[in-house]
């Protein structure tokens, strides 16, 4: 039972339209409370001159599950090149004498322990795994549970599983498809649903090498548009707060602007979230037949209020791309650097492709990808519909966020970086003419308030009374990269977890999930399918509350409410 006051900070809380107001912020037992200024408290922190925001929320970050661990297995060199830490810095112990920071390393795909530590040290208090296969759900929850401090959750992948495609091809009753979607969310303890290259992962299993939005799947005859429409309608009827999370068709293919816009329209006006849209914003103009489609895409987003996006900004340097999109990842394998890669077909659910990649400043294509990401950030008008991501680790590791924030907030810095890039790419860029600089308020939207709203997390991403006391307090330094790298204080559920970039506590994070209502009779169909096609027993398909709690090391269950009817 403790009452804490953060004194004199400058507050940015876009959910409540608070734009740089200097006032105290108090919390008790992990929740923000309204408190009279003269009320005595148990502990006070001086935040004067500092900037106070809710903890950061990364709505699309590959932090756990099969392909993430394959990335680690594939790249021991990534882990060996992790800068050495001072041993002395690891000797902090908890009350029981255990070391707070256990050994864990890696740059682009750190171990789960390092992932949790680094997110927290950066002022982030939640991250969401966007590509959990139903068959890999336990593994995903186990890894997320071993990601300390931050809360987590996952979007379950549908739309490439054989059963869904069979039902769609057989023109099964929509209600049954909807119940299947509801059951899958329930069984895998997911927060939302993601579709990756709709139908395309399955099509690759039947040796189809590309699939456009209105092109039929070679085996089932259905189109990506039908998959998108069915899934977004199902989520709307199930009243799941997060819209369908879409990794669109034709990832990385020059000229994919059209299919990206067609993907937006496949939702027929229902809410839809297009993820890492940078990879889906490519034109075919110019001598290299590769150009920025950012303007087109931004215009399309601006014109469609039902669409939200995250960017998937690329960051120069070594990373690894890990995706369920086997069709596209296999195409990219010749570009693997270093020259090694993993692709797999998984459990009639989906698949995965892990391809290491080095984004180079002097590569025309890579430079333009970097430019396109920034153009999209700067050209989309409504920051509430844009989330800041690098699609960790696909565009770059999440530890690049402070750098990315500076690129968005600091035009001269952006110009300086642009000048280092491939000269042809600079010429092909609209970036020099984009003078917009993100304000602190807008950064607070795209890194916490917006993602919380898009995910339906009502008590996160803001600083109103009743909200969880997930708080980041930054020193107001002119170098925004430095500022966002190591906040002065980070609180998780009211507990101080990091101070000036150093851990002081490592609590276990909680798990966000949603439990939509659906007709249980769908289980008969699922059991029959499982018996006929799968190698496991349907009796073990669903994860109970108790089991997910075990997977997550006893982390708190944080059920997210479905939207109200009407």
């Amino acid at each position, binding site marked *: 039972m403790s009452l804490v006051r953060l004194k004199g900070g400058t507050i940015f809380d876009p959910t409540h339209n608070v734009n740089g107001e200097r006032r105290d912020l108090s919390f008790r037992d992990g929740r923000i409370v309204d408190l009279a200024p003269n009320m005595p408290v148990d502990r006070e922190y001086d935040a004067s001159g500092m900037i106070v925001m809710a903890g950061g929320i990364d709505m699309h970050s590959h932090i756990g599950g099969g392909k993430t661990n394959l990335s680690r297995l594939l790249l021991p060199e990534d882990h060996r090149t*992790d800068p050495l830490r001072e041993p*002395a810095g690891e000797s902090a112990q908890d009350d029981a004498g255990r*070391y707070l920071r256990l*050994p864990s390393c890696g740059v682009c795909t750190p171990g789960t322990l390092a992932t949790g530590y680094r997110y927290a040290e950066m002022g982030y208090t939640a991250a969401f795994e966007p590509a959990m296969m139903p068959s890999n759900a336990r593994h995903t929850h*186990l890894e997320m549970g071993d990601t300390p401090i931050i809360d987590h959750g996952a979007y379950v992948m549908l739309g490439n599983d054989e059963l869904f495609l069979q039902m769609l091809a057989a023109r099964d009753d929509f209600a049954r498809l909807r119940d299947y979607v509801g059951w899958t969310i329930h069984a895998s303890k997911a927060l939302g649903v993601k579709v990756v290259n709709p139908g395309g992962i399955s099509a690759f299993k039947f040796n189809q090498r590309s699939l456009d939005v209105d092109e039929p799947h070679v085996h089932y005859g259905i189109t990506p548009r039908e998959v998108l429409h069915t899934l977004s309608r199902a989520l709307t009827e199930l009243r799941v707060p997060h819209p369908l999370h879409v990794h669109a068709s034709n990832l990385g293919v020059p000229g994919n602007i059209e299919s990206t816009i067609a993907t937006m329209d496949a939702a027929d006006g229902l809410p839809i979230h297009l993820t890492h849209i940078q990879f889906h914003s490519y034109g075919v103009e110019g001598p290299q037949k590769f150009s920025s489609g950012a303007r087109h895409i931004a215009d399309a987003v601006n014109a469609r209020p039902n669409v939200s996006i995250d960017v998937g900004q690329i960051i120069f340097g070594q990373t690894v791309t890990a995706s369920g999109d086997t069709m596209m990842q296999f195409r990219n394998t010749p570009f693997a650097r270093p020259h090694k890669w993993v692709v797999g077909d998984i459990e009639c659910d989906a698949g995965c492709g892990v391809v290491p990649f080095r984004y180079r400043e002097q590569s025309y294509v890579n430079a333009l990808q970097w430019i396109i990401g920034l153009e999209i950030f700067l050209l989309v008008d409504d920051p509430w519909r844009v989330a800041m991501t690098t699609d960790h680790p696909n565009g770059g590791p999440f530890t690049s966020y402070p750098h990315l924030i500076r690129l968005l907030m600091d035009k001269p810095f952006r110009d300086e970086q642009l000048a280092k890039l491939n000269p042809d790419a600079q010429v092909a860029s609209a970036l020099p003419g984009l003078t917009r600089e993100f304000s602190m308020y807008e950064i607070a939207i795209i890194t916490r308030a917006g993602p919380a709203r898009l995910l339906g997390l009502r008590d996160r991403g803001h600083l109103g009374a009743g909200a969880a006391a997930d708080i980041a307090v930054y020193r107001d330094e002119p170098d925004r990269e430095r500022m966002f790298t190591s906040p002065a204080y980070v609180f998780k559920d009211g507990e101080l977890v990091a101070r000036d970039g150093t851990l002081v506590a490592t609590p276990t994070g909680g798990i966000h999930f949603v439990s939509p209502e659906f007709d249980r009779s769908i289980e008969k169909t699922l059991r029959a399918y499982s018996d006929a096609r799968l*190698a*496991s027993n349907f009796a073990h398909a669903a994860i109970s509350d108790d089991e997910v709690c075990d997977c997550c090391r006893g982390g708190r269950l944080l059920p997210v409410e479905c939207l109200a009817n009407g």
Partner: protein
Amino acid sequence: MNASGTTGARTPAITRDWTCPFCPLLCDDLVVESHGDGTLSVADTECSRLAAALASYSATDTQCRSVVDGNEVALDAALARAAQILADSRRPLFGGLATDVAGARAVYVLAAGCGAILDHLHGDALTPATLALQDRGSFFTTLSEVRSRADLLLFFGCQPSRRYPRFFTRVLASTDIARELIFVGCAVDPAAAGFAHTRTETLLPHADPYDTLALWSALGEGREPGGLHRDSNGNDADASPAATLSSLQARIAAARYTVLVYDPGALPSPHAALLIEALNRIVKAANRTTRAACLALGGDDGALTVNQTVTWLSGMPLRTRLSTPARSAGTASLDHDPYRYRTSRLLAGGEVDALLWTASFAPLAWPASLDPAVPLIVLGHPALADATKARGANTVFIPVATPGIDTGGHLFRVDSSVVMPLAAARGAALASVASLATQLTTRLHEQRSGEVQQ
């Protein structure tokens, strides 16, 4: 779920949909009966491995006591002595590691507390797979994909039923796909016979695996069999291996989905990694025009599970050494080295000063090469008690629960994409590896802080 709850060791109970923890197929369609006398049985099992594993559980398991230096002691005394051994050790090895996810998680924290080296009982089988993956990657598939789509199955130098008796039942039974099963470099697995719509045959049963894969790789890259006739002396050799493999390539090209099955543990050492790399290279090349994937067997006794868990926690796979913050400046807290941190090498060279041996699935003893003077802590199956008593001095034994018999748990299935939940079939009151490792961690730190105060 377990009808008897977790404490009713003496109550007969039947568990349906039970998942067997004794091999990485993790068959989950079984009915297990726990009898009043502490024994267990599965009626009508076709699995010799399961039957043998169940025979190691008996009425006396719950009376099994801890042992220190040959004498039975209370758990508390055994934990105290074990913690003392770890606190005194400068370079402990945590070997065996036959445990589940929860055990691996807790053992990792303990290893971090005392700067231990981690290697698994099956480290020698695991390592070539790890090395091949680190060097070139892989192209893999999973059991349900095999079951529902594979029409051509190639088995390279392995008969899966030898170690995984129900392999063919799991992937072939009650399906109606016409399939060809070809055993390359070995005889047909007798267990593969008798499935509907399935034909079996063998190719090059006596060929050298390296030669076979060299030829096959060349053919996979488009070389003509006619150009591959010469042996190493430049003479025209028997053309048949190249021609045989060329016709195999044609069958892969014509198949809808080819799955190439291999077992790292059955490949000839010490260069099994080269064979694994070649198998995956052949499959990767095939995917340029058709669809194919590899299925690697192995991962027994929690090898796959512990490797996965250590990898996600630390970033590094097994055969990794952890260091405490007391290490010298300029060194890393994790050092992954599959050659250096091999159990047999470390023991032979006298490079470790304590061994923590975990064996929760079967009474598998520590390596015989362990110097009697090196302190040994065994977190083991109750049936290991006598062996530890016989070792006498420098030995601590604490009986542990088997996941799936006396506790729940999680294990990775052979294809490494699916984690299966385990339910306790018997529920005898034995401590889990996870709980013991956690208690040891606490005691280790108490011991350390006590020493500091003195």
